[in-house]
């Protein structure tokens, strides 16, 4: 069964309300994500559930134009111009069109509104191209997966229909649903091709269909081209310097590529050089950590559950189960991972890890962040990148970072790992969950992280 499906049922267009390519692309559209019908709705002037239906009716041409325009970004624009985990461990903050309509008021004033606006357009299905009623569907890409976040549409628009979450217990905005990018690509491509074929079948709209087919071919070539893809992935500075970096770093450039996916888009060469300098290291230390990473965790689990499982396994390996530990460097020493401080990377990352195919790894943390935020948030960040290493090492070069711009799914898993690694569930039973001062003091975890972990693990504040 397909996890994402766009089902189209062609209709004759109402002559008074369809223009240009809308005339031949009028249809009923149902969008399904797993078992949930995202397009289930009822008329705005009706509250009766029995009048619900699973489709919206209107022109498909605008959706095609949006997909063609934004295709490389839908697939490869991984960087988000906001902090998805700024509220702590438990809340994601992927903005919907509802947030955009309110001027992203829940987001920090320091964020660049232009970048937010452009990001929102490129990731909100149909925005600025189609007036077909849809819930806010935000598409969030990663390298091999794509996340879908659904929310109600903006208030005050007087839409002709109201959408309802399929399962009454679910509320929008929903957490992202992640699935294989290849699957999403295949389904969107099928949808666009079907619409273009339909438009081509009518003499009236053949001109548009032929033109749009050229645009479609061009944008797909662009998305498939490694050089142009690099610019979307890392920004122009890195894309322009890539050949030089690859010559300098050889295969270690893969470490840099991983780290750059977890930092904001770099705009200064100096920042890039600082990161590159941290990739030159020699280590012959034993790599005990590979024992923990050897058995893959169940990928079907949600990311946070994977993090918990991995942390439990790490604690068992270290023989500390529910015990608190004071000195993180002892732990890393036992695992064979050198830990180093670095400076001049503030705002890019709080901690990072690199490893080579032999399993030699090195971890670093931002000394400036450590001095300004304190020991406990730094312990959390370092633990989080340990989680990244244990979860993502697959025998090749690896680079990953933890910070305000690190990737969504990986960060959710790493946050869960860090929280469980520092404050295991087994220990919570013996503690008073309301006594956060005591928990913080004994387990060396910050109050905010401890309080979210207690909520997430025990379900109580």
């Amino acid at each position, binding site marked *: 069964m397909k996890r994402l499906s766009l089902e189209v049922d062609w209709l004759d267009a*109402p002559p*008074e*309300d369809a*223009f*240009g*390519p*809308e005339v031949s692309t009028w249809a009923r559209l149902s969008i399904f994500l797993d078992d949930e019908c995202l397009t289930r*709705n009822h008329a705005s002037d009706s509250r009766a559930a029995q009048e619900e239906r699973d489709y919206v*009716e*209107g*022109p498909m*041409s*605008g959706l095609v*134009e949006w997909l*063609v*325009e*934004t295709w*490389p970004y839908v697939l490869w624009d991984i960087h988000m111009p906001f902090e998805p985990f700024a509220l702590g461990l438990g809340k994601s903050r992927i903005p919907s*069109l509802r947030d*955009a*309509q309110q001027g992203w008021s829940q987001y920090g004033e320091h964020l660049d*509104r*232009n970048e937010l*606006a*452009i990001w*929102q*357009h*490129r990731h*909100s299905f149909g*925005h*600025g*191209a*189609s*007036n*077909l*009623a*849809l819930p806010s569907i935000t598409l969030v890409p990663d390298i091999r997966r794509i996340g879908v976040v659904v929310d109600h*549409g*903006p208030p005050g*628009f*007087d*839409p*002709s229909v109201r959408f309802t979450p399929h399962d009454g217990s679910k509320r929008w905005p929903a957490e992202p649903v992640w699935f294989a990018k290849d699957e999403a690509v295949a389904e969107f491509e099928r949808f666009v091709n079907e619409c273009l074929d339909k438009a081509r079948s009518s003499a009236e709209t053949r*001109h*548009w269909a032929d*033109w*749009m087919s*050229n*645009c*479609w*071919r*061009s*944008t797909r*070539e*662009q998305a498939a*081209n490694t*050089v*142009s893809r690099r*610019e979307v992935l890392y920004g122009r500075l890195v*894309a322009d310097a890539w050949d030089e970096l690859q010559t300098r770093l050889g295969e270690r450039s893969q470490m840099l590529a991983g780290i750059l996916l977890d930092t904001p888009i770099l705009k200064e060469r100096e920042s890039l050089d600082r990161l590159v300098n941290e990739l030159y290291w020699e280590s012959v230390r034993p790599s005990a950590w590979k024992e923990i990473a050897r058995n893959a965790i169940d990928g079907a689990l949600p990311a946070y559950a994977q993090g918990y499982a991995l942390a439990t396994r790490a604690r068992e390996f270290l023989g500390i189960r529910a015990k608190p530990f004071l000195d993180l460097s002892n732990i890393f020493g036992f695992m064979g991972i050198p830990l180093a401080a670095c400076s001049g990377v503030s705002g890019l990352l709080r901690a990072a890890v690199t490893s080579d195919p032999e399993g030699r790894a090195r971890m670093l943390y931002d000394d400036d962040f450590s001095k300004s935020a304190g020991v406990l948030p730094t312990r959390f960040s370092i633990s989080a990148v340990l989680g990244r290493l244990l979860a993502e090492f697959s025998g090749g070069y690896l680079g990953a970072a933890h910070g305000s711009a690190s990737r969504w799914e990986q960060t959710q898993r790493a946050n869960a790992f860090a929280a469980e690694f520092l404050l295991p569930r087994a220990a919570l039973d013996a503690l008073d969950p309301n006594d956060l001062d005591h928990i913080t003091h004994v387990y060396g975890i910050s109050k905010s992280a401890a309080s979210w972990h207690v909520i997430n693990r025990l379900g109580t504040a």
Partner: protein
Amino acid sequence: MKTDRLQPGTIFMRRGLRGAQWGNWYGEGAAALLHRLGALGRLKRKMMEGSREKKVVRCKNYHRPLKKDDPGQLRARGDVKSRCPAWADDERLRTLLLAEAIVDPDGGEDSHGRPRRLWNAVNDCYFIGVSTNEAEAAYNCYPETPATRLHRELAERARRSVEDIFDCP
């Protein structure tokens, strides 16, 4: 020139018009840059021409607000994300708003080489005009979320009242 004006999305559409004959415009050094700047200049000229061209509003029935004296209607053909406020049901206002609309710099072009997306705002309401790709320069206009790099300018325009639009020389 600010480099962020060279938005790939804009260029895609031109490339599409030309059958993607440019090849990879990212990695070809100075020649590619000149090509891109030339393309930007041509696009800007086109936008200016486009903005002077007489444009028509395609106001769809289902965008029109319901009024007190409407007889009521069964579910209309077409489900829309937004409907215009009642005060926008004025042909002169719609024409004025479209005439002074701003071209979205990231919107690219329609199948006839005209700006594909226009924006305007008045009375706290943000409107988009999306080209209908007809031979005539026609735009389907409706309220839309201003997720565009024009949002600051649009916020300024949204402070205007309808009277301000009519009073404008």
